[in-house]
């Protein structure tokens, strides 16, 4: 059984935000919602300072704390490893959002335009609003689902596809010979907050 996962090579990543934007454009996320996000860090004192970007998304954990706390069973772990939200079951308590140590969940209470209030919605916004409401929903928890719809079409998630640095490698982590599995093994792959025991399915390769 294919169980998806991702490797993000921090050596390749130069923090351009293409992943965040690709996600936004593909999933039509409203203002303030970043299923894929880029965090920026800085360490060291001048002149030994270094900056680094850390692209994050839902890590589709094998022990997802969002699922543990979900009171309704709306959060579901699929056999292919992806964690999804059944928007028909979600009551919008945001407990999952509080439980996720990676900040991957977003709840939109009211769909908002990017433009100042009072303007009629643009053609694009009308379509985006409709797509958001149909696919993700208002008043329910939303999150990255590795672009499940694209996977069904045999395409990589939008963030993987866009990355100019090819920093993201997507594939079957259950297959020890898949590219991501090999990268994790060979290049000291690590996960974030391993001590919390969430067992993320997104690994990082060190920046240096």
């Amino acid at each position, binding site marked *: 059984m294919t169980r998806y996962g991702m490797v993000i090579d921090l050596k390749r990543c130069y923090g351009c935000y293409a992943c965040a934007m690709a996600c936004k454009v593909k999933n039509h996320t409203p203002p303030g919602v970043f299923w894929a996000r880029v*965090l920026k860090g800085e360490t060291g004192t001048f002149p030994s300072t270094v900056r*680094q970007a*850390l692209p994050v998304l839902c890590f589709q954990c094998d022990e997802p704390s969002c699922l543990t706390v979900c*009171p309704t069973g709306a959060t579901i772990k699929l056999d292919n490893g992806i964690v999804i939200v059944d928007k028909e079951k979600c009551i919008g308590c945001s407990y999952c959002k*509080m*439980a*996720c140590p990676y900040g991957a969940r977003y709840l939109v209470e009211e769909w908002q335009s990017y433009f*100042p209030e009072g303007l009629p919605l643009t053609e694009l916004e009308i379509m985006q609003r409709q797509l958001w409401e149909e696919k993700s929903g208002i008043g329910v928890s939303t999150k990255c689902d590795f672009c499940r719809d694209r996977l069904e079409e045999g395409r990589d998630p939008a963030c993987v596809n866009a990355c100019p640095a090819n920093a993201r490698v997507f594939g079957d982590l259950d297959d020890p010979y898949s590219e991501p599995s090999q990268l994790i093994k060979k290049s000291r792959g690590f996960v974030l*907050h391993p001590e919390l025991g969430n067992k993320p399915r997104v690994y990082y390769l060190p920046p240096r």
Partner: protein
Amino acid sequence: MSIEKQRQFQTTWGGMVAAYLFLGGVGAGAYVVGAVSGLLDQGWRPLLHAGLGLSFPLVIIGLVFLLAHLGSPGRAFLAASRLGSSWISRGVVIVSAFLALAVIHFLGQVAPFDYVSNAPPDSALPVVLSIAGILCGLFVMLYTGALLSASKGYPLWRTGVLPVLFMVSALLTGLLADLIAVALADASALMAVQYRNLALAGAGLIVVELLVIFFFLHSAYRTDDSREAAEAMAKNPSFIAGDLIAGLLVPLVIFLVMWFGMEDAAPKTLAAAGAAAGVLGLMGGFLLRSAVLAAGMQSSIEAAGFKFRTPSVAPPREAPAGRLPPQ
């Protein structure tokens, strides 16, 4: 926004949730204090009635706040689906059980039912009911804290001290709520000595709560993230002025004066003093929940020698509309 400003204090759980946590705690506390007093001696009946009378509506109002917080309240009935792991599901059961017991207990005290107040002297019903209700009430209090401490994303909350803190605060605010109710309904229903005993109990609870708060903040020095969050909470003016000073220290002084300095005061005077302390204390209890929620700072992420923080989500767009080109 520069790196150091990138601390995300959650706003997802705000006033509505704080109100729910507070009212759930007060309701359960009011019941527990009333029921415990009811087990002591018949002289505490007014307090028992206050506790039983308050618990149900307070918790229900709390639930209304909770429902108002939900993104999709229409489906709230699904919330008990995962008792095995979700504190919300568990809470639904605990709170339901508590509400049921509270109602049964309350109705048994009032005409035309009277099955508790008129139970035969050898009947175990009042005691059994009280003990069951007290246990459920304690669970409700603990659960409001456990709900938060199970949130992995917020290191400040991830401590067993939080349920204890919320329980102590719930008992105190429950006592205060009962005290206010008695004072308003019939201040002379309790004797002066009873008021002064309540003041002593209240003072004791305040001291315990202050200690637990100290312990809660102090224990937050375990990680950078929780320490920063705790510091933010300790610097929160509404927490300092509203809870620590007005909500705890001032009532403590009032209670100590009631105990030590008002030996000859009339019950009404004592009731008024107690009610004043009560109002302040209740406000403090709400502000404590608010402060704990407001100090919820999402865990930072350490990777490869860097520390990353999730920047605050940009505030809702309030860009001035500017001017559209003539259409």
